[in-house]
């Protein structure tokens, strides 16, 4: 069963085509990575998948919710109730402690009493190694901690599908490896599907089951998909110059 189906998706801003004819699928329970160079449309594609942006053309189906064209708002809202998203900076609410940030979705969407919400939120913070920091405000923590707290908040409702935007960027290697381990354990224990946007090659090779690579020059008039598959296989076998440049640091002539 596929958690995500992307079929022939194009995104235009005015006359400018960001990418076109993007198609791929994400199987339930896999770790899927969207990668590519700067300006290739990774964040645009992520925004489409999480329902912040409607595609100019094509169809996106996330957990059975089909999003087609700009009038898909109701479907997008229904889909957003079932996913978790961690934004690049963590996007924590500055007026709340880390614990309150994680408790917020539980307060909105469950009947859990306060002690129950606290117990769940503390556990989620403990999972990302922030159990000791639950009383701190976002302004008092480092960028890496904010990122981990963002992951804890995204996991608050144990969604079956988690989107993580650059989860390891700016983290030290130990914390980055911990995040990778956390992703794998959630995938194995709960069957959670992960879609990651990341540049961290070590992380991609360590945890990704499959990936899709975008390039802004895939077509003469815009960007698109240049490779899809197992990242290790792409590293070893791909002949595409941009894929080789990314995985093997071979600068195209």
């Amino acid at each position, binding site marked *: *069963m596929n*958690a995500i189906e992307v079929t022939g998706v194009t995104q235009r801003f005015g006359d400018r085509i960001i990418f076109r004819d993007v198609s791929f699928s994400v199987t*339930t*329970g896999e770790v899927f990575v969207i990668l590519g160079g700067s300006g290739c449309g990774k964040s645009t594609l992520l925004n489409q998948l999480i329902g912040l942006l409607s595609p100019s053309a094509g169809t996106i189906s996330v*957990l*059975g919710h089909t999003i087609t064209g700009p009038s898909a708002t109701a479907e997008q809202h229904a889909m957003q109730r*079932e996913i978790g998203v961690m934004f690049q900076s963590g996007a924590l609410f*500055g*007026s709340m*402690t880390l614990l309150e940030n994680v408790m917020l979705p*539980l307060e909105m*969407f*469950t*009947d*859990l*009493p306060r*002690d*129950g919400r606290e*117990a*769940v939120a*503390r*556990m*989620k*913070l*403990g*999972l990302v190694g922030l*159990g*000791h*920091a*639950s*009383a*701190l*405000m*976002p*302004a*008092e923590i480092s960028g890496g901690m904010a990122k981990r707290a963002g992951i804890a908040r995204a*996991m*608050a*409702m*144990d969604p*079956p599908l988690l989107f993580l935007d650059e989860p390891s960027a700016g983290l030290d290697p130990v914390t980055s490896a911990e995040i990778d381990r956390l992703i794998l*354990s959630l995938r194995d*224990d*709960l*069957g*959670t599907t992960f879609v990651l946007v990341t540049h961290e090659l070590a992380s991609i090779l360590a945890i990704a089951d499959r990936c899709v690579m975008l390039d802004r020059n895939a077509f003469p008039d815009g960007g698109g998909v240049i490779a899809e598959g197992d990242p290790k296989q792409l590293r070893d076998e791909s002949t595409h110059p941009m894929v080789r440049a990314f995985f093997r640091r071979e600068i195209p002539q």
Partner: protein
Amino acid sequence: MTPPSGKRPGATLKRESRDGRAVLVITGDLNAQAAGQIWRNAMREAAKPGDLTLDLSALTFCDMSGAALLLAIEAAHAQPVPIEGAEQKITALLDKARTSAKAPAGAASTRTSGKGGLAAWGDAIAYLGEVLIALLRLPMRRRMLRWQDLLSYADQAGVRAIPLVLLLGYLMGLILAFQSAVPMRRFGADLFVANLVAISLLRELGPLLSAIILAGRTGSAFAAEIGSMKVNQEVDALVTMSIDPVTMLVLPRLIAAMLVMPALALLLDIAGLAGMATVMTAFGYPLVTIAHQVQQAATPVDLFGGLFKGLCFGFAVAVIGCRSGLATGVGPRAVGQAATAAVVGGIVATIFLDGLFAILFYRVGL
């Protein structure tokens, strides 16, 4: 255990008695929503004394929120709670949840809502001292004062405020004249409305209203600009480049505000007198008579005293606006709080200073 896929049917909680011991049977899918529905009942059951066993043999799915409920049941029961029939994955999940729940002692937030009492006054006096020192050192630090910025602030605080000042001044004069003309007419003294409005505008309302406009428009803008710079570490960057933030950021704004305030007060006076003249003309008095009354009532001391007050109010509003900006904390709300503090502080300081001037002018016989 099947992987989760969107909506799940939920869980049920049943208490049974087996061989004289209580057994809590949880069936179905235990996710965050389901845990919320049975949480209170589960805690009630767990709080009862006696042996208690958890039967999870019919639990088809359990996520971390469900694991939190199972751990809460264990914690709420005074004695150990054996678990029966749990799938291996659920047992592993519970072990992981136990580890996650054992967080070391939490660090308390060190953020406070601001200094109060003597410390705040001490900071304010220290800041005033810094501003004065920066003013005294300005001849040696001329490069740090960017004249282009100063002109831009003067444009922002003065030229762009002129339409608002003229409108408010005209309406103020109009209202003041009309409201006082009606009762004064009963005593045949409506001609003296010109005297009343002229003196109150030149001495009090002109500088006071201009200062309130300055606080609302410019004081808040100063605080927000400097506050954003503080949040983005631009102020720290200045310090590390050995550039004095007070000279670079505060002085141009301060000088600009002090330059434009007398001009704004004068414009407000003129607009107010025009508003008063409109009412008096409507009451049948010719303009020349009104002008004569104003000339007789108001002296240059009233006019220049008012303009001097405006200068001082400009100083107060700019100093407080910049101070609020420099004292901005961290986080997205801090800039908004700084802007609010600038407006409130600016208006309060203006009215306080106005009271001081009233006493001072009275004592020196002006």
